[in-house]
């Protein structure tokens, strides 16, 4: 799953080495996250009135096998991964410009709702409705960009404000567009009855596998990820974005229009999150219901981006992984609860915040150890690391890619 991480064509060798560290760091974070999740289950069992210590192990087994029990649960991995990938790209793309788009959930909600307006009220086909969702998300995303560029207000604060404002605005629109909810008072009409053309195509696969969670959303998301990768790595605009993210003042000095870059970045970031919303609600499996708290999908994009160190192609892998975790969460229902996924995710993010530093540290320690008492690796991690650290630097830099 993570092969894509290393096989991306590297620009220079220094970057390649950083990627190795990043890969190692992500793996360490994931392992620690899972370990702590099991420990926590034991602790929770301890807190219960009647403890049964076999339950955590059964729970974890169910957790990991659940996604492979049926075509529905398996296809749900990718069904979840598509919007995660897009919100992850939204967050990661903004990260590249040094912006923290915590407002992805608001943009996602906007995109979702306007896609439904396009589908139900305007009778658009699916691709046109997706375009509408991009525009709506971009509109809600560009506002923090404008505030950042012209008033220098932290985008975190504006996008938090806009998340809630957006949610209530969507609710207001919902109530004032009675044609969008003719059947139930707080749920949009089912697309299958109002406009089947607006449902994302599945090429008949759903019927073959007797499920309803297969659609081209994941393919669209992967294509978008590749486009974002090309924009970031191969275009002048991408260079400007990364340059602004690394040092805004130096970029301005070098002649880059930082304000324009910030606004455009947030515009694109919002569009990505909006598209994510469109893909979920045009799948025909869920309807938009009146919400009183923010939708979690936008926030889930943050771990997707963090775990991938904002690399667009790595986001493909991490979103599938997190899509798997989210799909697996249902396997814990009954014994524990779906929320276990959140705990695992949070621990993974917590450790990924400094895992890069720790993995550098491990390598340093190993190097020192290797110099003092010869080559005696005693673990898989050490073996993987050792050959490189023992080599002189020039040799190291000519070395290839992690498999």
């Amino acid at each position, binding site marked *: 799953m993570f092969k894509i991480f290393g096989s991306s064509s590297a620009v220079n060798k220094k970057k390649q080495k950083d990627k190795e560290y990043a890969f190692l760091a992500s793996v360490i974070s994931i392992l620690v996250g899972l370990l702590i999740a099991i420990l926590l289950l034991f602790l929770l069992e301890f807190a219960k009135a009647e403890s049964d210590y076999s339950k955590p192990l059964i729970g974890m087994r169910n957790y990991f096998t659940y996604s492979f029990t049926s075509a529905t649960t398996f296809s749900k991995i990718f069904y979840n991964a598509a919007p995660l990938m897009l919100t992850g790209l939204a967050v990661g793309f903004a990260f590249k410009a040094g912006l923290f788009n915590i407002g992805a959930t608001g943009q996602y909600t906007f995109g979702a709702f306007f896609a439904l307006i396009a589908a139900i009220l305007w009778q658009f086909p699916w691709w046109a409705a997706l375009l509408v969702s991009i525009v709506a998300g971009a509109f809600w995303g560009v506002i923090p960009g404008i*505030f950042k560029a012209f008033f220098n*207000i932290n985008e975190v604060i504006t996008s*938090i*404000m806009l998340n809630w404002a957006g949610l209530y605005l969507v609710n207001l629109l919902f109530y004032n567009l009675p044609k969008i909810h003719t059947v139930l008072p707080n749920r949009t009409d089912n697309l299958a009855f109002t406009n089947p053309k607006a449902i994302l195509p599945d090429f008949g696969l759903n019927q073959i596998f007797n499920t309803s969670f297969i659609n081209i959303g994941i393919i669209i998301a992967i294509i978008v990820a590749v486009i974002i990768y090309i924009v970031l790595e191969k275009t002048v605009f991408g260079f400007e974005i990364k340059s602004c993210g690394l040092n805004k003042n130096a970029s301005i000095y070098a002649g880059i229009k930082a304000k324009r870059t910030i606004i455009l970045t947030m515009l694109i970031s919002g569009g990505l999150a909006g598209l994510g919303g469109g893909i979920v609600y045009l799948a025909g499996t869920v309807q938009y219901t009146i919400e009183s708290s923010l939708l979690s999908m936008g926030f889930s994009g943050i771990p997707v981006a963090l775990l991938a160190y904002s690399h667009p192609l790595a986001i493909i892998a991490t979103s599938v992984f997190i899509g798997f975790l989210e799909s697996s969460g249902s396997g814990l229902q009954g014994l524990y609860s779906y929320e276990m996924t959140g705990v695992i995710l949070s621990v993974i993010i917590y450790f990924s915040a*400094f895992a890069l530093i720790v993995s550098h540290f491990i390598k340093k320690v190993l190097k020192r150890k290797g110099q003092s008492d010869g080559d005696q690796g005693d673990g898989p991690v050490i073996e993987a690391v050792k050959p490189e650290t023992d080599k002189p630097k020039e040799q190291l830099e000519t070395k290839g890619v992690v498999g």
Partner: protein
Amino acid sequence: MDIFSILVSKTIVYAIPLLLGALAGMYSERSGIINIALEGIMIFGSLFSALFLTRGIMTSTLGQTHPQFVIFLAIIVAGVSGGLFSLLLGFAAIKLKANQVISGTALNIFAPSFAILLAYAMISQGISSIRLPRGIVMNAAFFGIDASTLPSWLNIMVFSNLYLTTPISILILIISFFVLYKTKFGLRLRSCGEHPQAADSVGINVVRMRYIGVLISGILAGIGGFAFAMANGSNHEPDVLGYGFLALAVMIFGNWKPFKILVGALFFSLFKTIAVFAATLQFLPTFGLTKVDNLYKTLPYIITLIVLAFTSKKSRAPKAEGIPYDPGQR
């Protein structure tokens, strides 16, 4: 007239968690650590204090004779749990020099999930709402005042929603002002947020000051979470509905200064209360829309944005916030 009294009293009771949260953020950011985890810490505080109150302590003799003392204990529980939780942020951000926003986000994702898991384990599988005891308002009788002698609007305005958290947080506000501006400790704390290397050069232990900043932040946010639980009624879901994030906005609104934060919290809370009561306030225009309360709910956020846009020139964040302390840097 009574509706205005209710508005005022609700405004105050919902301003308290915002005030505490924003003060919490202020302590942390003044020491140089961005505390985006306020939301998570508030959830933690509300969770443990609510669990503490359900564990039969209210029905014990102590709870029957001195209910306010038990509430005081719950405040301590909230503060301690919030403080301990915030140390996770401190450890990552100070000791390991991790990205503060990322580790804060991790805590924000952890807290609500963990709260539900723990509530399931402690109460019953599938039930996460915690029943808080009723009748813990500090009413007129508590102060030895005969409620019937007061005009009804005054009684409603002052005593209908007066919890122990209200006077305590006002006390915290005043103490915060003195600590921050009139003590040696406050000066040192602020210097760590502005220029830690300079602070270090005159012998201030930056790491220690930052840990203290984060710890105070956690304690206050934990209490803020409890204040939210008290304000929100007797069936408490372990969640603070975005108040932690709003507190961050209030802190920026208040320009990292205690009394301006109070103004910001009251302002924000007022609009929020108006939105809640929009259906009953006849004089508010409906613009021909159905469910117009949703429009009023957006008002506090949009007005805050506009105010921020106009005041951004004067806005001054602590200079070194968000940057891990590196003694070798100049």
